[in-house]
């Protein structure tokens, strides 16, 4: 009988080079789902999210909520939801709570999440992201769905340190780490 072990998407994250220009930590055990509003149900969905989570559903590319549960705007009528409070079967209950208002798809094992910070972070991200991430153009709470080295990413700014969270398809996690190591090696990548 084969023993199966749960291996997280960024299990191979490791420190590279000297220094702590970029500090990276994998966010593990997070429930992740995409939520897509059903036709004509946008207002009812926003009301349900307000009632169930006390969260104002963002209409644009912004995040709303807390560390425990966040709704991130990723497109018109589309959100990425992350839940960090360990509620068992969170996505199943989310789908039930939003039944008839939105399509909910579990991404918990399909998407890897990294938390990135450090003094060189913006310079390193600039090597891959063709979006203005300066503090004035991209304040905390902003969300961008874009690509890094042809890999689709969803990134959002958590605070002005700056700290970013970044979501990458699990199938791309190895290639993404390769890009991160190559881009941050010069200033040092510290894995925590």
């Amino acid at each position, binding site marked *: 009988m084969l023993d199966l072990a749960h291996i997280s998407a960024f299990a191979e994250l490791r420190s590279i080079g000297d220094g702590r220009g970029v500090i990276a930590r994998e966010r593990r055990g997070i429930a992740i789902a995409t939520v897509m509003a059903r036709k004509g149900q946008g207002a009812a969905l926003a009301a349900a999210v307000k009632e169930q989570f006390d969260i104002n559903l963002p209409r644009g590319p912004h995040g709303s909520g807390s560390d425990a549960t966040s709704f991130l705007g990723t497109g*018109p009528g589309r959100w990425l939801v992350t839940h960090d409070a360990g509620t068992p079967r969170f996505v199943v209950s989310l789908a039930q709570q939003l039944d008839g208002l939105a399509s909910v798809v579990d991404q918990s094992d399909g998407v890897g999440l990294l938390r990135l910070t450090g003094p060189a972070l913006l310079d390193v991200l600039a090597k891959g992201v*063709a979006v203005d991430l300066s503090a004035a153009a991209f304040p905390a709470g902003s969300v961008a769905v*874009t690509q890094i080295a042809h890999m689709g990413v969803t990134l959002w700014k958590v605070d002005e340190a700056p700290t970013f969270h970044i979501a990458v398809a699990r199938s791309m996690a190895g290639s993404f780490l390769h890009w991160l190591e190559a881009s941050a090696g010069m200033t040092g990548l510290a894995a925590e």
Partner: protein
Amino acid sequence: MRIPCPYCGSRDASEFSYSGDATLTRPAPENTEAMFHYVYLRDNPVGVHREYWYHAAGCHAWLKVTRNVSTHEVIDAVLAHDEAAS
């Protein structure tokens, strides 16, 4: 060339795929003569033109972009979904 996505903001054209002439209306399928013209006989306009672009690497929305195809100046971009609804 950068396209001002109404949802995402200004993004490089490499995030989008071009999806055709936005000035045409798809004819009824039984009208084979009109369908032939719609599918195969394309104009090649100069100057300001309206085109569909799909934000494939971003918000996945379809945009209607007004663009000067001679200078690549992008004049306007709206969500095709919004325009269809109005």
